[in-house]
């Protein structure tokens, strides 16, 4: 493939990440090949994101929350990716865990403008408040939606069984 620049993957990214983010990160791991996770406290999210942008991860693919109901924690994560030739196969998950009953994290849209819509979505779907986000309106849900944010685990969905016993109902 002469037209495509060689997909050389940056080697030793884990060390780079540790060097760059070691002082604020609680944990840096290589979850899968080309997939790294960086855990920080909510207070150092902005700083960590800024340093990731300096490394070349200039936008996020996803912002999401995972409701760990048993631990009573909410995991909020930003999946950063890059269009740089040597970084393009890499995804970095920057995440934090905050208490589930009052999940508040700072918004990262000043660092990652692409986080705007997914942060809005995470706010409405999981009730995570992104402090400083200027536009936390409902996005996918109706504007008058009230109640438990639907992606939380205590919002339950009834699932049907797969057996119908018509001998009792005598409907048909």
């Amino acid at each position, binding site marked *: 493939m002469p037209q495509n620049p060689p997909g050389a993957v940056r080697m030793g990214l884990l060390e780079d990440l540790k060097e760059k983010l070691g002082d604020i990160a609680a944990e840096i791991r290589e979850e899968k090949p080309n997939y790294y996770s960086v855990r920080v406290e909510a207070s150092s999210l902005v700083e960590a994101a800024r340093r990731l942008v300096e490394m070349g991860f200039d936008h996020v693919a996803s912002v999401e929350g995972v409701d760990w109901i048993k631990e009573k924690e909410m995991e909020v994560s930003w999946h950063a990716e890059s269009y740089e030739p040597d970084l393009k196969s890499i995804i970095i998950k920057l995440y934090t865990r905050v208490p589930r009953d009052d999940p508040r994290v700072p918004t990262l849209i000043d660092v990652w403008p692409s986080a705007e819509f997914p942060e809005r979505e995470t706010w409405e779907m999981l009730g995570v408040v992104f402090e400083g986000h200027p536009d936390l309106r409902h996005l996918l849900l109706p504007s008058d939606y009230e109640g438990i944010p639907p992606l939380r685990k205590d919002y339950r969905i009834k699932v*049907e069984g*797969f057996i119908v016993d*018509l001998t009792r109902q005598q409907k048909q």
Partner: protein
Amino acid sequence: MSIADRIRRNPLYSLKMHAAAIATGLRYLFAKPRMTVRYPEYVIDLGRNYRGMIRLHKDKCISCSLCAQVCPASAMKMYKLPGEKKMYPGINYQRCIFCGFCVDICPVNALEHTPVHDIAEEDMEGMIYLPLPGRFDREWKSPAEEEGGRKVKVEFDEEEGLKHEPE
């Protein structure tokens, strides 16, 4: 300079491209092919590969209920009917998405796809096909074909794309 920029900068070239567009239009105005298949006068033969309405062979069924468990739309359910000992699958076509998982998972090939998709029912109840005689085990036939529509075969063609030749 790209063609687009030439069109923008050079009025004469732009006129030429206007003429080319009109000529293309005129060419198709007098060309023969049409893409439309005039359903229901002509019915496309979907072939045995098509994932159409599902048919149950009740004699083969072993009531394992795998089909009902795999159904992603909860369309297929196991029905226990009065007077029958075993449960048999029934299907609700209000929900069916024709993914064919039930056909693929059936260990005895008791379920099969038919090449028919154009079925209408008079009411919502009618779309639930219970494992009763003449219902879920029925031989499907396209209503358009039953009312005199001619079957056409789809053929790939370099000139016309898809050709629909009556059989």
